[in-house]
């Protein structure tokens, strides 16, 4: 297990390097450049050229990349000319807010999806199962941003139970309870589509496991149904569920732009969105890097957890072939 984990950790380095190349190139393929945004429409071409010189934009791409990567490795994400602040100063606190939202919705998604899937599998092909699966199907096809708006309309505008936007209140806000109150709607909105995926996966895996011979043997020995479900079936059904769960946490990070824009949550997705609109390239680069880095680490975590749960997956490829 230790050797497997070390091998997987070593593989992370080239992946992250690839991530940095993609992010760097993506930003340099963008039409228009930051100097025209910064100097304004009235600026002379000479002023822009001078700006490009100060920012090092006149150098060849590989040189710019090497310089950028060098800074990155020292924890320097660059400087936002729009905000006149270091990128790291801006994106790390935002990322912490996103982590709160992503963890809360992941927790909700796992709880709902896991239990719905187990109940559906235990009563497979019954009415209960059909109702749960219908919900799963609909939740899986529902746009996050639309669901968010519906929740805002019902729970914030009509029934006034939860606040519609933001993370804290202006007046005596900021405490943990205040944040929790603001967290409910965005967490639920981003959790439901993920819960659908976790639910479908849990159901499918559990039904497969429940049809195995050792379950039949356990049943023949007269072991109670609840004990079989918990002790025999669940443990063997866990690895694929963990994989999907890890992927879901990762994809929550992708969908976080929608949730945070709808609910004005002060996180990395919201920041990424406003920086894209404002063409603040260093922040876009930093935010994308941070999200992709977290995504890679979450997938690694899920793989390691799987290797722990199921020794058969401890192969060189990490049990998920290309």
């Amino acid at each position, binding site marked *: 297990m230790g050797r497997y984990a070390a091998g997987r950790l070593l593989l992370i380095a080239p*992946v992250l390097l690839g991530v940095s190349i993609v992010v760097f190139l993506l930003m340099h393929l963008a039409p228009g450049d930051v100097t025209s945004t910064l100097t304004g429409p009235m600026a002379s071409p000479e002023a822009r050229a001078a700006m490009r010189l100060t920012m090092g934009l006149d150098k060849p791409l590989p040189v710019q990349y090497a310089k950028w990567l060098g800074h990155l490795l020292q924890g320097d994400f660059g400087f936002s000319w729009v905000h006149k602040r270091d990128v790291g100063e801006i994106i790390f606190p935002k990322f912490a807010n996103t982590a709160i939202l992503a963890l809360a919705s992941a927790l909700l998604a796992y709880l709902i999806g896991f239990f719905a899937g187990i109940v559906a599998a235990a009563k497979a092909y019954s009415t209960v199962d059909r109702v749960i699966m219908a919900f799963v199907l609909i939740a899986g096809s529902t*746009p996050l941003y639309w669901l968010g708006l519906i929740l805002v309309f019902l729970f914030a505008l009509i029934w006034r139970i939860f606040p519609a936007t933001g993370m804290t209140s202006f007046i005596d806000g900021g405490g943990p309870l205040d944040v929790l109150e603001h967290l409910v709607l965005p967490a639920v909105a981003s959790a439901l589509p993920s819960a659908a995926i976790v639910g479908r996966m849990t159901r499918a895996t559990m039904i497969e496991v429940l049809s195995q011979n050792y379950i039949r043997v356990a049943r023949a020995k007269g072991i109670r149904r609840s004990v079989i479900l918990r002790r025999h079936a669940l443990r063997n059904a866990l690895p694929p569920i963990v994989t999907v769960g890890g992927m879901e946490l990762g994809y929550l990070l992708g969908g976080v732009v*929608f949730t945070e824009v709808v609910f004005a949550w002060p996180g990395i997705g919201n920041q990424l969105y406003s920086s894209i*609109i404002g063409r603040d390239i260093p922040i*876009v680069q930093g935010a994308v890097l941070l999200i992709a880095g977290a*995504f890679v680490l979450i997938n690694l975590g899920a793989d390691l957890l799987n290797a722990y749960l199921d020794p058969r997956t401890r192969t060189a490829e990490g049990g998920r072939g290309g």
Partner: protein
Amino acid sequence: MSVAVAVRTGAPTGRLRVTLANLGSAWRAYARDRASLAALSFLLLVAAAAVLAPHVAPYDPYEMVALRNALPGEEGLILGADGDGRDVLTRLIWGGRISLLIGIAPTLLAMIASLFVGIFAGYLGGWVDLVIMRFLDMFFAFPLVLVAIVVAGILEPGLLTIIVAIFIALLPYITRLVRTTALSVKAQPYIEAARAGGASPWAILWRYVLPNVVAPVIVYTTTLMGMMMVLGSGLSFLGLGVPPPVADWGTMVSEGRTVLKNAPHVTVFPGLLIVLVALAFGFIGDGLRDALDPRSRKR
């Protein structure tokens, strides 16, 4: 977002094959499944309405025809009016043109490109395969939704931008499926037999590999179309799509935001339509899988 996970987990595993000879029996098998048939009818209806928008839409999509925020049923408008007094039903019909296009076009284009790249990589193998797959691997380190948003964000807002963004985000996923399928087809005895019989490499690719790879990819792609329409509408929702006053369903949801309290119907209907169309694509994909794979047919 669930879109992307289904992209990874929804791939069909059975080997399917498309030929002209079995199209008839495939259609009969498809038509037997009532859910897929209903889904197909619904989708054709929506598509027909969108294509014939100038003839079937009751009003002009950009003109104020009623009081602002008129509720459904008021002033003779079945689905009410939006914040600018425009007919919601009319705008849904016109919006379908863009929304369906951003679901279908990039997915279809990505499928065609993936078939080329994936078969190339999988069948040729060696360093070609290695270079292509390591390059695509870099994209798997990003959530699909993030790739689409960033690509759409750095280009100028517009229809083409959304199509390009989804195309790029999707390409690695379909290519991987094509490659895996091509690899397993390559190992089949009938390929060896064809080679022994003296068939040229191109004949083998064209006559034997392609037909056996195409079917699972079509099934996968159909399911993806609904999800990519949800994603594409999301990009429009973020303002990265066609500029106003033209609107697809995602833009309509976004426009409804400002009048959410007094006129929730402006937001509800376009979203509902997105859900229904995405579901329809899903059912059609399921039906196709059953129809194209004789082993999974019920009777």
